[in-house]
Structures are given as structure tokens and as C-alpha cells.
């Protein structure tokens, strides 16, 4: 009966003399015709499908600051047990920190030799082994019950992320060194590092680390306390190349600072106050958007948000505790207890933090956007691009036209030529592809970048979004609106970043291994050159 229902009696009846001489022939022929019709309909509407996918992707992106896509944070690794311990850091330790601060203030303008001599004298007076590299001073704490195979790194650098001296951060670290020695409930060694400058001292130490120590470092903390007192703890978590620490670290520090230290945490030092607006959800949306934009700003250029960022490259889950300068009420006591309790949580770990908790966006303290809720935006944008590349009549011909841009960019990299000097190259190309070859070249570019975007989105979501938007503009817009966009060439934009934002990506690549600079050569430059060569005629 079902069969009868499905086969509606339409079309010509079977004819014994034709090809379709049985009812089965007739029904199969109808199925084939129907299938072909559907495919044809889709094929002809590809531009529309692309527009729909792109629009949904963008809308999804805009929906990210909306609360409906968020989840409440939780600590996934049960061993961490944040804020569950009795703390011993007390006013005697605070007094020590004050004394260290007095002495630090006297030598802050000294040479590296003077400063490291003071630090080493102080640390060894606390009973610690201490030494220095060319740009940092370090101490090694071996608690009685530690096996010495694993370590926790705690650092404070001379320059705060504000640009001023981080004296209270260093004083806290020195007091912590004095406090931790001899306590017998620690299972990890501690490495205390005081780096010169803002970041390069710590980076120099990490490059030396494996020559000096055998212990494996799983987790780390960086202390940044530039002011006199503080009101909030700002958590800066983005590492170099957009590498994020396991979210458990952020959640642990948040919980500890709130419940053990008694100081409310913030992300990036953004006040967690809902702005006044027409309705509450709009205020929350704006606050979430502010957090995400700050996050995107660091991630797009692959820059670390604070000095802990250099640890990310060494597979250390870490963040910076930034004591927001204020007139009160918190000081060494709160910070010391927060650090102690956090270290105790880290001390509980039997293995590396490894749950799939590395992919997240943080729209507000205590809230996060899981990967499944934000990744579709990048995938949809990537799909919109990829689908545009399916019609590729002459793939080999197309390949011949797009390869030279990659080669030119590779040569520029090899000879260290700034992208700005490459602007004339695509304009000078004489044999521009025409007809199907041009169509194929464009399709190949769309396929390549369409595949790249979702892949990059797993590693660095904001970078993938930017790449998706750039690729869509370059490869899909007609000539007139595209020309001004292409005029903002990679070379011009990087120059602009150095001049007006003080971001020198080349220097970051040399000093801390920020891959955005080589990424510009490998991905953006060839894309731009090909986009110029393949500029659409109206």
C-alpha cells in the first residue's frame, strides 16, 4: 500500500515498443529526472546559497555577545579543587614583602648586574638556590616532598604591562619565595623568575630553561602589580600566536581570587558592570561585545596580552594576574593568598591539563562560549567561499596563474623584503588570465582559502574570521568596490600598525616567535596579489 502511495500514476504509461517497457522503467526514469532537476536548481542558485551562508555566518558572529549562546564556567579537572585549602600566607609575609619593596625602590634604576645581585642575595637569604641568565634572575625551590620531576613557574617582570615598574609584583614574588621554602605539602618544585623588561627576560629564560632544569613545567603564573593597591584582579590569558591556556586555569584563578582572596576577577581589566541602556539584554550584549573585541584585538595579530604569553609557546598553561591599580582595598595579603591557593590547586595535578578545554571565548567573568557555539560562524563563512570554487573548468591552467604570487611572496620572505615593496608586482604582471583560465584561477583560490578558514578557526578563531572576511571581499566583489579595498595592501596596513598602533609584527616574530608575520607572507600576500591579478571585470 505504501508503495502504491509513493508512486503517483503520472507520466506516460509503459510502452512495450519503447525503451521504457515496464512500470519500473517509468518510475526509475522519473526518479532520475527529479534528481537532476533538484541538482540543476541548486547549481543555478549557487550565488544565492553563498549569500545566504555568508549572511548567516555574519549574523552568527554578531550573535556571539548575546547571552543565549553562553554557558556558565565550571572547573573540569576535579583534581584542581579551587579555593578549598587553608592558607598560611599571613601578615608576617606581607611585612617581608613590604621590606623587599623598600629595597627594590632603591635599586629600580640600577643596572642589570646591580638588580640581579640584589635579587640573588635576597633569594639566597631565604634559603633558595638562585642564579641568573643574561636577562633574568631565577630561583629554584625544592620542597621536601617534591620529586623534582615537575615544576610550577611563577614570574614577575621588571616592567608592568602598563609600562611602569612592576615593583610590587617582584616584591610579592620574593615574599612568596621566602614563604614557600620548607613547606612540606608541595609535590612540585617551583621556579621563580624575575625577567628584565616587559617580556624579553622571561622569553630569554624559557629558551635557556631546558639547559638548566630537568623538571617539566605544566602550569605557570605571572604577577603584574604596578600600583599601590588594587581593587580587582584582571586576568590576561591570551598567549603568543593566540594560544590560550586550558580554561581550567582561568576558572581556577577566578574562583580562588573571588572566594579565597576575596577580590573579584575581571578579564582584561574590563569592568564587569552592565552599561545603562534601554533594556538589560542590550547592556549585557554591549558588555559581552566589549570583552570579545578586546580578545579579538589580541588574537588577530597573535600578540600576547601580557608577559605570561611567552610561556604559551612552551606548552605551559599560564596567565597574568594584573592587580588593577586603585586606592584599595587589596594589597600583598590578598594577592599572596590568591597565589598560594592557586598554587595549591596546581599542586594537585597528577597529569597535564588535557581535557578539550582549550577552545573558548570569554564574554564575561563566570561565562564562556563553548567551541560548538562560536565555530559555526567561521565554518559558514568558509563554506560560502568554498562553494564559490566548485565551478573550475581548467584547474591546471588556473594553477599556473596563481602559483607565481606564492613564489614571489616566498622570495620576498627569503630575502626579507617588506610587503610594501611587493605592491607593484601584481600590477606589473602582463599576462593576466582571461576567460575560463581566470575563472579557474579564482575558483582555486576560493577552494584553497575556503579550506583554510575553518582549519584556522580551530587554532585562532578571530584570525580565521578576519581571513574569511578578507578573502570574501577580495575574491567575490566586483571591480569597483574591490579596488579601494585592495588599495589597503598588507604592506600598507603593517606600516600603519607600526606607525599608529605601535605594533611591530616583524619584531615580535624575531623576539617571541609570533607567527603572524610569516603568516602575512604565506597567506595574506599571495591572496592579495592574486586578487589584484584576478580583479573582476564588470
Amino acid at each position, binding site marked *: 500500500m505504501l508503495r502504491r502511495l509513493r508512486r503517483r500514476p503520472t507520466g506516460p504509461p509503459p510502452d512495450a515498443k519503447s525503451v521504457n517497457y515496464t512500470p*519500473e522503467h517509468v518510475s526509475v526514469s522519473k526518479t532520475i529526472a527529479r534528481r537532476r532537476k533538484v541538482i540543476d536548481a541548486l547549481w*543555478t542558485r549557487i550565488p544565492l546559497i553563498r549569500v545566504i551562508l555568508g549572511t548567516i555566518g555574519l549574523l552568527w558572529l554578531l550573535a556571539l555577545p548575546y547571552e543565549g549562546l553562553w554557558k556558565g564556567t565550571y572547573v573540569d579537572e576535579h583534581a584542581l579543587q579551587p579555593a578549598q585549602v587553608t592558607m598560611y600566607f599571613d601578615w608576617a609575609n606581607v611585612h617581608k614583602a613590604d621590606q623587599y619593596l623598600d629595597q627594590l625602590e632603591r635599586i629600580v634604576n640600577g643596572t642589570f648586574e646591580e638588580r640581579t645581585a640584589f635579587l640573588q642575595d635576597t633569594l639566597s637569604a631565604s634559603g633558595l638556590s638562585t642564579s641568573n641568565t643574561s636577562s633574568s634572575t631565577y630561583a629554584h625551590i625544592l620542597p621536601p*616532598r617534591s620529586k623534582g620531576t615537575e615544576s610550577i613557574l611563577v614570574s614577575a617582570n621588571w616592567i608592568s604591562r602598563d609600562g611602569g615598574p612592576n615593583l610590587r609584583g617582584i616584591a610579592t614574588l620574593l615574599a612568596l619565595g621566602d614563604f614557600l621554602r620548607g613547606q612540606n605539602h608541595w609535590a612540585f618544585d617551583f621556579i621563580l623568575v624575575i625577567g628584565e623588561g616587559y617580556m624579553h627576560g622571561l622569553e630569554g629564560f624559557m629558551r635557556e630553561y631546558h639547559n638548566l632544569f630537568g623538571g617539566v613545567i605544566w602550569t605557570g603564573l605571572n604577577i603584574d602589580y604596578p600600583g599601590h593597591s588594587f581593587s580587582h584582579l584582571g586576568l590576561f590569558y591570551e598567549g603568543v600566536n593566540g594560544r590560550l591556556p586550558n580554561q581550567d586555569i582561568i576558572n581556577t584563578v577566578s574562583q580562588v581570587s573571588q572566594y579565597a582572596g576575596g577580590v573579584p576577577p575581571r578579564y582584561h581589566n574590563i569592568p564587569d558592570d552592565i552599561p545603562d541602556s534601554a533594556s538589560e539584554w542590550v547592556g549585557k550584549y554591549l558588555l559581552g561585545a566589549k570583552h570579545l573585541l578586546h580578545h579579538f584585538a589580541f588574537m588577530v595579530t597573535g600578540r600576547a596580552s601580557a608577559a605570561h604569553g611567552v610561556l604559551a609557546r612552551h606548552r605551559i598553561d599560564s596567565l597574568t594576574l594584573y592587580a588593577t591599580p586603585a586606592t584599595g582595598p587589596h594589597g600583598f595579603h590578598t594577592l599572596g593568598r590568591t597565589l598560594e591557593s592557586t598554587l595549591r590547586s596546581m599542586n594537585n595535578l597528577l597529569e597535564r591539563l588535557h581535557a578539550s578545554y582549550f577552545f573558548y571565548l570569554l564574554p564575561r567573568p563566570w561565562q564562556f562560549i563553548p567551541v560548538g557555539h562560536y565555530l559555526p560562524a567561521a565554518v559558514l563563512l568558509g563554506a560560502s567561499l568554498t562553494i564559490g570554487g566548485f565551478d573550475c573548468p581548467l584547474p591546471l591552467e588556473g594553477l599556473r596563474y596563481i602559483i607565481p604570487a606564492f613564489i614571489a611572496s616566498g622570495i620576498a620572505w627569503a630575502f626579507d623584503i617588506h610587503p610594501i615593496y611587493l605592491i607593484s608586482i601584481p600590477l606589473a604582471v602582463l599576462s593576466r588570465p582571461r576567460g575560463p583560465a581566470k575563472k579557474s584561477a579564482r575558483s582555486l583560490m576560493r577552494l584553497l582559502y575556503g579550506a583554510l578558514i575553518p582549519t584556522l578557526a580551530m587554532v585562532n578563531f578571530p584570525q580565521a574570521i578576519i581571513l574569511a572576511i578578507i578573502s570574501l571581499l577580495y575574491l567575490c566583489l566586483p571591480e569597483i568596490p574591490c579596488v579601494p579595498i585592495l588599495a589597503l595592501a598588507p604592506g600598507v596596513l603593517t606600516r600603519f600598525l607600526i606607525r599608529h598602533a605601535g605594533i611591530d609584527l616583524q619584531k615580535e616574530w624575531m623576539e617571541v616567535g609570533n607567527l603572524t608575520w610569516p603568516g602575512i607572507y604565506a597567506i595574506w600576500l599571495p591572496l592579495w596579489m592574486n586578487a589584484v591579478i584576478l580583479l573582476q571585470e564588470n
Partner: protein
Amino acid sequence: MLLSSLSLLLLAPIYAAASKASRHHPDDAFYESLTLHPLPDGRMSVLFQFETEFSSPRVLSSTSQSHHSLTPPSLILPLERNNVSELTISFTSGWDQQRSSSSGPLHYESSGGGGEIRGWLKDGDDVEDRWSAVTHALGGLFCAGLGPGDSGENVRTFGNIYPEKRRTSNTTHFLLSHPESHLCTENLTPFLSLLPSKGLSGISSLLAQPGIIFTWASQSEGIEVLMPTSSNDGVWRGWWEGIIDLVDNKGNRKRDFSIEGIFKKKIPKAFPETQQSILRLIKDDSTAITVHPSGKEKTDWIDGKLRDIVEWDLLDQDLIGGDININWDEEKFDYPRHIPPPPITITRTVIDKLASDGTFQITINNNEDIERKAVYSELWPWWVKGWMSEVELTVQGEKRPELIESISYNPSLPPKISTSTIHFNVIIPPKSKLILKIPFSKLTLRYTEHRPDAERGIELPSGILTLLDTIPESRHDPELESERRDSSVAGPDVSRKGNDARKTGRRRIYTNRLLLDVPTPDFSMPYNVIIMSSTVMAVFFGLMQGALTRKWGWVEVPIMKGESGTSSLMHGETKDNKVSVGADTSIVGGYEVVHESGEKDLSKVTIEQSNLVNGDAVT
């Protein structure tokens, strides 16, 4: 009344046997000592040593029976049954060479980090089985897995590193390293139960306090058994060592201590059967130490230095129930800025870290003005594969391949589980820093070989530097004694003359343990893979089944409504191909379609391999 007398009658032979056994054999003897060695950074090494001499229970007995008076049968019987001639078990939690001025724990037989069992077995066809039996038996005794996971883990190339104490012929050496083992409370109770005094009297009663002992640092525990031979008595020694902090971080900055202060007990009453019970204090500090009550002063060579020693005889009735105070002649103790390093320090790290490769960097510092000869040994699990052709030795940045006299390498042969061992015969120039680099790869572990905490990584045993040029520490060297007495008159020459790095019983110096990250699969992934591959298999099977059970034939496909519109669009898209598609195209499977224009429809000239739902209809 009647009942009790009956029980007395019944139990009489047992009482008699018991009273006989309590009279221990005249040759059996028990010695114990407690050594205190203050370290330069305000800490103190505390070493308990227990030694029992025993004769072979079988030799003196006419019938086959075993007498154990001071020796524990649970320890001796498995060794006897399995024909073991010498055996050492050691658990060590680690050592800080930098801050202790010493290359290793006070007890020379302490191994590197973790657990270790090694010994000499008399040869025979079943030697491997006997070794396995004895390790498992003693593992149970020490509440620790001491046996091999696989027989390939047994190492047999370390006989020269751990030579026999008594030269006997036809024996085989075995070594098993367990770097992942901890030393914990579970190890103390079995250790005490092996002692004749059981932690109830004598020095062992000071040790029987886990709440105190396990707050100490750098613990080391071990036993060593030399089985009796026809010419020698047997000896079994046990030791326990730990480091305590003398300086209180808060407030009290003095090192002064007393026995009662450390152990919360007065000097205990002696174990009745003990021959000797000694408390020893090694004074090699620049600051003067006063003791009360005073003990016997002497000097001895210990670990390359002639050191002042104070000894108390704890069998002395005047001391029992009393206390001993040790005081430094100082206002308060300050941690020194620099601590003199031991003659030789050795560290091992992994550089050039990648997920799959790395390089062991072994740094040997010779701080003395004498050239040393040594063997550096490593043992690796099967999945660590060294690149022997790329081994590099540098001194002060200069390549010095001639300092490696020979290499003996016994590689593992995967996939069989076996341990790689490697011995470098090296010369360490005076006052130098020697760096040995061994590149290696990590082979992929099998799924079942990962530990429960897979993301932790896996510990590697300590590397061992065996010094070949040590001179025994002679207990009483009259010549030196007199020399020292002379020099003590002379004054400042004391320290120089009392230093000879070679004059030590410490032949082996251990590196730290290493935790090596291993490439770890995401352990939820196998399930995803199973789900995915099952789906692919099902789809594939469905397609194949369909293809094989269907019949094939020709079908004529009608012109659909709206196809003309579609075609014209297609026309627009494919104009470059110079193919025109007519509005009245009839597409017939299996036929070339000729259009009005006479051009071939290239895009459609494919045979429609349509399937018939009911194949029987087409015949």
C-alpha cells in the same frame, strides 16, 4: 583448674621450642647506628643503619630446618629458595646536589630516584624465573611493585657497575629500575617489621614514627642482603635516611637541636640483643659545634673528606632516658650565599624538545683539580631510541670525542619489550664542565602501555656515573691520623690536607630522574574512530550490496517541466565550452543525443546507469 593444667600439658612442647628459639645463635649479631650530618644550608641528614650478621641456618643443622633468631624469615627464605647470593633494594625520593655539598645521600648504596632492585643470582637454567620469583616475593613484602612487567625489562649489563661484594663464581647480575615508585608510609611498616627490634626499642623506636619521618626531605630507604656462604656469614643491612630542616622559617633562626627536639622522644632503652648501638654526629662545619653530654671524638674519612666525628654509645645506661643537645656557636643562622659544590655534580635535562624527539644533555662538573675516570650509564625503556652516531661530547664548548674511551650499547629490539642500556667510558678533565649530548626519538607506545594518567608522561631512571678511580675510606689510617694531628698544630692546612675527592666509598653518582612527555592519543578518540569507521563500513556495504543485487538496463528519461529554463541557465554557465543545449533536448540514457544544431551535448553523453527497482521485470 583442670583445663588450665591440660592446656599447659598440651602447649608444653611449643613453650619449649619457643624458649629454645629465643636463645639466638651465638654467631648472630645485631648492630645499629644513627648518624647525624648537618648540611651547609641549615638542614641535617639523618641516617638510621641496622646490620645483622647471621650464619647459614642449614649449615649447622643436621636435619633440614631453618632457624631464624634475628633475621626475618620472610626476607631470607625467598632469597635462600631462589639461590640468591646478593640482593639490594633501594627507594629514593631524590637528592639536591647543589645545596648539600654532597653528590648523594649519606648512605652509598642509595640508588637514584624511585625504586630499584638488583642482585646476583647463582647461575642455572631457571635463573630468569628465580629472579622473577624473588622480585615478586619482595615486592609484596615492601608493598611496592618490584617485579618486571615483562621479562625484557630485566637488565643484565650492569654487573660491572654493581660488582659483587663477595667474589663468587657462576653468578648473574640482574637490575630492575622503577623510577615511578614513591617512598611512602607504606614502606615504613614492612621495613620495621624486618628489624629484630621491630621499632619497639633501641634506635628503631625513633624511626617508628611515620608522622615525624615523613615530613623529612630527600628520603632514602633500602636493604642489602649478602647470603651466607661456606666461608662467610650472611649479612643483612637496612638503612633509612632523610633530611630535616633545623632552621624554623618563622621566628627561630638557630640550628641548635636535641634528640628529643627532633624525635619527640628521649634516648630509648636499648634493644636487648644489640651488640652495638651508636649515635654519631659528623661535624664538618666551619662553625664550632658543642655537644652535651660529650661523646667520644674521632676523625674519619667520609666521602672524600677527613671529618670530625662525635660518637655516643647508646647502650650506656647514663644516656638512656636522657637527651643529647647539639649547639652551634652562632647568634643566628643565615643561609649562605654560596654553598661549596661536591667534587662531582651531574645533572641531566632534555633539550630540543619536540613531541617525538629530544636530546639528553648530561652535564658533569668536575670541581676538583684531578682528572677522573668514570663510566656513565643510562638505561632506557624500549620506546626511547638513541641516535648513537650523533652522540656529542663537549668540554667548555669544544668538541672532545677522544674523552669517550669506549661505548657499550645494548639496544632494545622493538616490538619485543626490552630495555636499552648504554655505558660510556669517559675521562673527566680536571676543573671542567663536560657536556654529553645524546639525541633520541620516542617510539609510539602501544595503546595498552599507557599509564592510567596518560598525560603525565613517563619517568626515566636516573643516569649513573660510576667512578673507577676511588680509593677505599680506610677507617683507621694511622699515618693520616698523625698527619692530621700535625697539621692541626700547623693550623690552616687542615682543610686542604683532609680533602681527597677520590677517597670515598661513593662509587656511583646519580642524575635526577626525568619525566618524559610521550605522544598521547586522545583516549576518547578510539570510540570516535570506531563510530566513524563503522558508519563508513555500513555505507560501503550498503552500496556494494545494492550494486551486486541489482540488474542493469536502459531507461529513457523524459523531458521535465522547467528543464528548458534550467538548460538555458546551463547554457550561460558553460558558454566557454562551446556546447549548446537545445530547448527540446531529449536525453536518453545510453544514446548519443544529436541536437537540431547538430552539435554533440558533451556534458550529457554519459550512459545513465540507472537501476531498476525490480530487476525481474527486465528480462
